[in-house]
């Protein structure tokens, strides 16, 4: 906002848009502007309820936002509506029948890590 281009546009405002210049000049010390539109308390964007799915790590979402949608990370893609989704084959429903090859531990029981939510769940 303090770029040379912005300041030039401001200097030229009396010539390019005298009405806006007069309005800004009259209100410059208070910063308020005339606006008849009244917003709702919460805009649709500000209702925490939807968008990306719970299984998508927060850092994947942050990376996408910071990179302007260019960097989404391996194993993730964008749905038609821009929602991040997992693209690997693991989420196929056939998984219920096909548990794949499981490394067996003592007593031929499946070897498991910590049962606590954490280890296998991507970091917050």
């Amino acid at each position, binding site marked *: 906002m303090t770029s040379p281009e912005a300041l030039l546009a401001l200097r030229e405002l009396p010539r390019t848009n005298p009405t806006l210049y007069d309005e800004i000049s009259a209100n410059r010390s208070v*910063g308020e*502007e005339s606006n008849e539109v009244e917003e709702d308390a919460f805009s649709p964007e500000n209702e925490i309820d939807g968008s990306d*799915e719970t299984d*998508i790590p927060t850092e994947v979402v942050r990376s996408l*936002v910071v990179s302007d949608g260019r960097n989404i990370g391996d194993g993730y893609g964008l749905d038609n509506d821009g929602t991040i989704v997992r693209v690997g084959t693991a989420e196929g429903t056939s998984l219920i029948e096909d548990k794949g090859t499981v490394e067996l531990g003592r007593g031929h029981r*499946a070897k498991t890590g910590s049962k606590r939510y954490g280890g296998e769940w991507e970091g917050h």
Partner: protein
Amino acid sequence: MFAYIEHDAPELLMHQFSDGSRFRCSESFVRKYLRDLGWSERCSTRAAQKLPDNVSQILSDAFLRQTCIIRDHAIPAALRVNTDQTQTHYQMGGKRTWNKRGEKQVATMGMDEKRAFTLVPSISASGELLPMQTIFFGQTEASCPNKRARCYAEAEKRGFKFEPSRSTTYWSTQATMQSLVNDIIAPYFDKKKEELGLPSKQCSLWMIDCWSVHKSKEFRDWMKKTHPTIIISYIPGGCTGVWQPLDVGIQRVLKQSMKRSAHKDIVNETMTHLDSGIPASAFKLDTTLGTLRDRSVGWIMNAYDDINHKDLVLKVTRLPDH
């Protein structure tokens, strides 16, 4: 569902498929699974904000207004702050309901006034995230999270504020807006002025949207009288989705973090129960208001850490392409 799988069949989460992916019981998997079982999903969503026809002109004018204030008052980036309020349901996903296919009646969960709270984040144009204010439905301090709640002491130490609405909703009010300025916004500006070696009479710029309380004469008069060095700049009406820094990107990360924290608590609660050996059929999630309200402190602190990245905050405070 994730907790049951992790408890009863953790090997499903360990197996790596040929493409390198691992099963994470994603929401898309759960949806497909439920549909296959004959359930159907209904989702009530609000339409996204419709931009005014002359949005380019409106944003261009708003840009020049702000540039003029910044130039005339020599306001540095650290003294330019945007605040917004965000609605948060304790039970996220309550707008999605599942019913046996063909059923007419659709039950909604957690969508009443008591089952949500307002989160009020603020960011500066220099990339700082300020402590957050949180408004809870109720008349007294007892409506706020318990001081013994997880992360509460840390939140207080970091300057977070938990306040009852003392109204019939969980929304911000004149009183909570005033305490937001007194307890978070003005102290931040004062601290920054000191750090930057600027005089106390140095002006700051505060961007808020055109919500009725923000625009009310009562609030504007109070600001002029109590905090004369804070200049309010209203986000052009109907343009918050493209002009308000907090709406452009940060909300998405904030939402995701809160949802994951809430989900993590549910999984932990379920796992604790399953580990206790009591039959799963006897288990019911604790969805009482007090429990969820206390848990929300941890969600908020996690969300703060997840969005408190300078590259993210600076990214969203950059101007939109219009």
